[in-house]
């Protein structure tokens, strides 16, 4: 047993222990050769065999799902089986194989996309979402044809291995049984890393992970920054003990719930949550968030094959706003571009995406798209306390243009008799330009939120996506911290409240500094709220500064 132990080193994103089976993340696109060297009859036979295999998988999935989630929820796997019997679908696949002499993989992919597109084009949002089911069925067939079958034991705790994950892949991931992440690439500032922090899940990046480890038992030790494959029983036991100790610590933190975020000398600060989708709002409340300081709206755009309609957006904003029951929800308008892209936007490849066509720059040139979102946000304000926040601001003109569009929307909605509440307007301060003109910007808005990730990237001229630059990346760089101070002071001079919503907000080494700067709000991942609260409650600003 001992000789079987393989340890791989990496960089830890979230210190903790994860135990589970390794799973290699199969990229969604299985690139199939389009034309076949085989005779059509042989490809048809391959297709039939794959279809039979898929039916067997789906039947067993259905049966195990009935036991776990009940018949109603399991029915989806029955529907998938029926899709595999659908004559129109089968005819289309066979026709591609016969007439285009395509491979079975290609035929399945093309047909799946065509049917999915037809569903996606339907008016009804329920039916639009069925496009995902058609794709799921097509992917299952493709995976079987490619010999890369999904293991049926997907339901037990697992540690995900991947090259790296894109933002849309991370949001689509089924996270219920996810215990840890291991990625080959990715820097400590990548999206996978941010996701791991949000969920409080142990993660290692930069690991020489081998896809052949798929299905093997493993221990991820975030403290020692390594991964053990096929751990010996003694190691497994030791790690399990450690994991339990962590869990106990976490439950201690739960004791901090409902306690105010106040220092020993009585200085109070708001602690809000950053969320990436409506699904995270529960996590925010569980961790006692006093509000949502950053609701990233991108997932709405990345997760569906089309630009989300006003009604679709309203439904989701409303759910979050109502769930927060009167607590403030700051919705950041579309921050797409750079590394976050959706095909239907048709964005060009850029030499310098971080400095490119993104966020407010897209919104101010595609006003219809922007107004759809603004209208949905305004309408959501009827159900609670909503604030809107514009990203990537570099000039007063941008803020004025955005506010003017917001006012246009409000006038239109008033004309239509839509109820709305007051909506605070704020900006992300995440460019050095915004810091330098913070006084002028503060006159235009109700609040600033310091986006420290981008602010550090632009101030230090360091690409967050490039792992080779990690040794040079110092988020505590005095230039970054002075930027924060300048923006906070300018904001306060003009009556704005000032928050920090970047990763630095959760950095316990900086909490005291932020409090001394008079920062009004820190918005952090839900899992970071209670550790931050403990830190705040242990500080005494009457003592001399701690550095």
């Amino acid at each position, binding site marked *: 047993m001992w000789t079987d132990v393989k340890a791989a080193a990496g960089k830890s994103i979230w210190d903790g222990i994860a135990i589970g089976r390794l799973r290699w993340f199969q990229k969604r696109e299985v690139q199939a050769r389009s034309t076949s060297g085989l005779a059509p009859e042989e490809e048809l036979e391959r297709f039939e065999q794959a279809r039979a295999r898929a039916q067997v998988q789906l039947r067993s999935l259905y049966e195990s799902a009935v036991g776990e989630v009940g018949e109603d929820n399991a029915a989806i796997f029955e529907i998938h089986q*029926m*899709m595999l*019997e*659908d*004559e129109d679908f089968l005819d289309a696949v066979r026709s591609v194989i016969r007439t285009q002499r395509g491979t079975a993989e290609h035929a399945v992919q093309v047909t799946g996309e065509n049917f999915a597109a037809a569903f996606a084009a339907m008016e009804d949002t329920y039916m639009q979402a069925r496009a995902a089911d058609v794709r799921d069925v097509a992917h299952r067939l493709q995976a079987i044809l490619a010999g890369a079958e999904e293991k049926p034991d997907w339901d037990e705790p697992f540690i995900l291995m991947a090259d790296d994950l894109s933002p849309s892949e991370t949001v689509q991931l089924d996270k219920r049984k996810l215990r840890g992440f291991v990625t080959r690439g990715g820097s400590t500032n990548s999206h996978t890393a941010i996701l791991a922090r949000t969920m409080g899940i142990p993660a290692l990046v930069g690991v020489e992970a081998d896809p052949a480890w798929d299905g093997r038992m493993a221990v991820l030790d975030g403290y020692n920054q390594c991964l053990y494959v096929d751990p010996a029983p003694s190691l497994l036991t030791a790690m399990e003990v450690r994991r339990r100790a962590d869990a106990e610590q976490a439950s201690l933190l739960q004791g901090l719930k409902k306690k105010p975020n106040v220092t020993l000398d009585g200085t109070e600060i708001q602690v809000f949550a950053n969320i990436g989708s409506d699904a995270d709002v529960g996590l925010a409340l569980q961790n006692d968030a006093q509000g949502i300081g950053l609701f990233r709206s991108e997932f709405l755009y990345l997760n569906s094959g089309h630009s989300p309609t006003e009604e679709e957006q309203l439904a989701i904003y409303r759910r979050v706003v109502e769930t927060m029951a009167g607590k403030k929800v700051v919705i950041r308008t579309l921050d797409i571009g750079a590394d976050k892209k959706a095909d239907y936007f048709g964005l060009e490849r850029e030499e310098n995406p971080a400095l490119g066509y993104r966020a407010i720059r897209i919104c101010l040139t595609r006003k219809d798209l922007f107004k759809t979102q603004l209208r949905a946000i305004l309408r959501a304000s009827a159900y609670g306390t909503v604030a809107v926040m514009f990203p990537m601001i570099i000039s007063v003109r941008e803020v004025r243009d955005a506010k003017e569009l917001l006012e246009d929307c409000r006038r239109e909605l008033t004309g239509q008799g839509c109820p709305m509440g007051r909506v605070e307007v704020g900006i992300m301060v995440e460019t050095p330009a915004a810091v330098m003109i913070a006084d002028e910007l503060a006159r235009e808005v109700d609040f600033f939120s310091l986006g420290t990730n981008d602010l550090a990237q632009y101030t230090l001229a360091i690409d967050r996506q490039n792992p080779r630059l990690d040794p040079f990346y110092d988020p505590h760089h005095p230039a970054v911290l002075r930027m924060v101070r300048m923006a906070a002071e300018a904001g306060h001079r003009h009556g704005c409240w000032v928050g920090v919503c970047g990763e630095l907000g959760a950095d316990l080494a900086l909490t005291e500094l932020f409090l001394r700067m008079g920062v009004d709000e820190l918005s952090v991942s839900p899992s970071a709220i209670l550790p931050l609260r403990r830190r705040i409650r242990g500080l005494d600003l009457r003592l001399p500064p701690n550095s």
Partner: protein
Amino acid sequence: MKQFQYTITDPVGIHARPAGLLVKAAKAFQSSITVEKDGKTAAATKLMALMGMGIKQGNTVTVTVEGADEKEAAAAMEKFFQENL
């Protein structure tokens, strides 16, 4: 040929699950069974075509049954619609 009309009362309309049940029910008969709404027709044995019609609550559909066992099939279909949709 047998024909009947039915107005959908299910709040979500003919969504995936009832469409699946309908396909199952329709396949039990030899007769050809079609569902028509606003000039669009789909065979009741074709799941994706049925779902693709986007039939919602309040829509009236015409169900046509034709074949050897059309009498029993039409009766069974009418019962199915009343109970499930």
